[in-house]
C-alpha cells in the first residue's frame, strides 16, 4: 500500500506542477538548458592563444571556484564597465589603464593581500574582448602561478544568472 500511495503522490504532484506551469506567469521550459558540469561544453577560447597561456575555464568551473571562494576574480575592463556590473566580489585591474613602465610594484600593491601562488581568475566582457588574456600574460610574467582566464566573461556569467555586483547605473 505504501508503494501505491507513493506513486499516487508523485502522479498528483506531476499533474499539479506540470499543469499549473502551463498557466503560470513564472512559467519554465519543461526541458531546461542548464549547462552541466561535465557536458563536454568546454570554455570559450580566444583565437590567438599562445603556448604557455594560463588555462581557460568554462563558466561552470568559474562558478565552482566562486561558490567555494577558492579564487580572486579580477575584472580587466575599464572602471566604467566594472562599476556598471561585474562578478560579485571581483576587483578591478583595468588593463588599458595600467601605468607605464615596471608593473611589478603596481601589481604588488593591488594584490598585496595575495601570495603569488593563490588562484586568480581573470575575465572581461566576453569573447570580443581580450584584455583578460593580456592581463593574465602580464601577471604570469611577474610570477603569478595559479591563473585562469574565464573568457566567457561577465556576459556569460550574467547569462547563467550568477551573482553580480553593480556599483552604479550603467551609462547609456
Amino acid at each position, binding site marked *: 500500500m505504501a508503494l501505491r500511495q*507513493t506513486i499516487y503522490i508523485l502522479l498528483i504532484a*506531476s499533474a499539479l506542477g506540470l499543469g499549473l506551469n502551463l498557466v503560470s506567469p513564472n512559467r519554465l521550459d519543461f526541458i531546461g538548458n542548464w549547462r552541466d558540469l561535465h557536458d563536454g561544453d568546454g570554455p570559450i577560447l580566444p583565437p590567438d592563444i599562445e603556448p604557455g597561456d594560463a588555462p581557460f575555464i568554462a563558466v*561552470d568551473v568559474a562558478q565552482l571556484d566562486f561558490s567555494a571562494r577558492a579564487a580572486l576574480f579580477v575584472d580587466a575592463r575599464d572602471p566604467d564597465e566594472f562599476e556598471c556590473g561585474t562578478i560579485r566580489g571581483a576587483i578591478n585591474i583595468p588593463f588599458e589603464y595600467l601605468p607605464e613602465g615596471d608593473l611589478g610594484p603596481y601589481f604588488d600593491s593591488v594584490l598585496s593581500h595575495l601570495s603569488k601562488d593563490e588562484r586568480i581568475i581573470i575575465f572581461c566582457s566576453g569573447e570580443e574582448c581580450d584584455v583578460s588574456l593580456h592581463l593574465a600574460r602580464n601577471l604570469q610574467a611577474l610570477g603569478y602561478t595559479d591563473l585562469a582566464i574565464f573568457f566567457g566573461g561577465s556576459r556569460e556569467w550574467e547569462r547563467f544568472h*550568477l551573482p553580480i555586483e553593480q556599483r552604479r547605473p550603467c551609462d547609456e
Partner: protein
Amino acid sequence: MRRIIDNDHLTMAARVVVGVVFVSASVYKIIDPGSFARSIWYYHLMPGSLINLIALVLPWVEALAGLGLIFGFLYRGAIVWVNVMTVAFIGALTLAVARGLDIDCGCFKAADDIDGSALQPLILDGALLLLIMQLWFSRSRRWMCGRK
C-alpha cells in the same frame, strides 16, 4: 520504548512538525520554480535537462507529503516521500560541504544569493530525520482523515 514510539500525542506532534516544515519549504519553490531550478543547478548533481522538471514537480511532492502527514491522507506514501527527500537532501548537502561549496541550500528561500552555509540545514535535516523515523515506526493511527 514501543509505548513511547506509539504514543498518539507524540506521533501527532511529529506529524505536524514534519508536515509544516515540508509545506512551508514548498511554498517559495511553487511560487518561483526558476529560482529553485537555479538552486538545484548550483549543486551540479543533476543533468541539466532534468532540472526544470524536478523544480516543477518536487515542490508539489513536498507539499502533498506534508499535508498528507498533517491530515492523515495517503499517510504511508507521505512518510516514504518525506524519508526519501530528507535523505536525498542530506546526501546533496553533505556532498556540497565535502566539495567545499558554500551554497545556499535552496530549502526555504529563493537562490538569489549563493552565500550561505550548507552546515546549518544539514543539522536541521538530521533532526528532521529523527522525527521521521518516529513516524516510520509508530503504529498510532489517531486523528487521520483518510486511508492509512
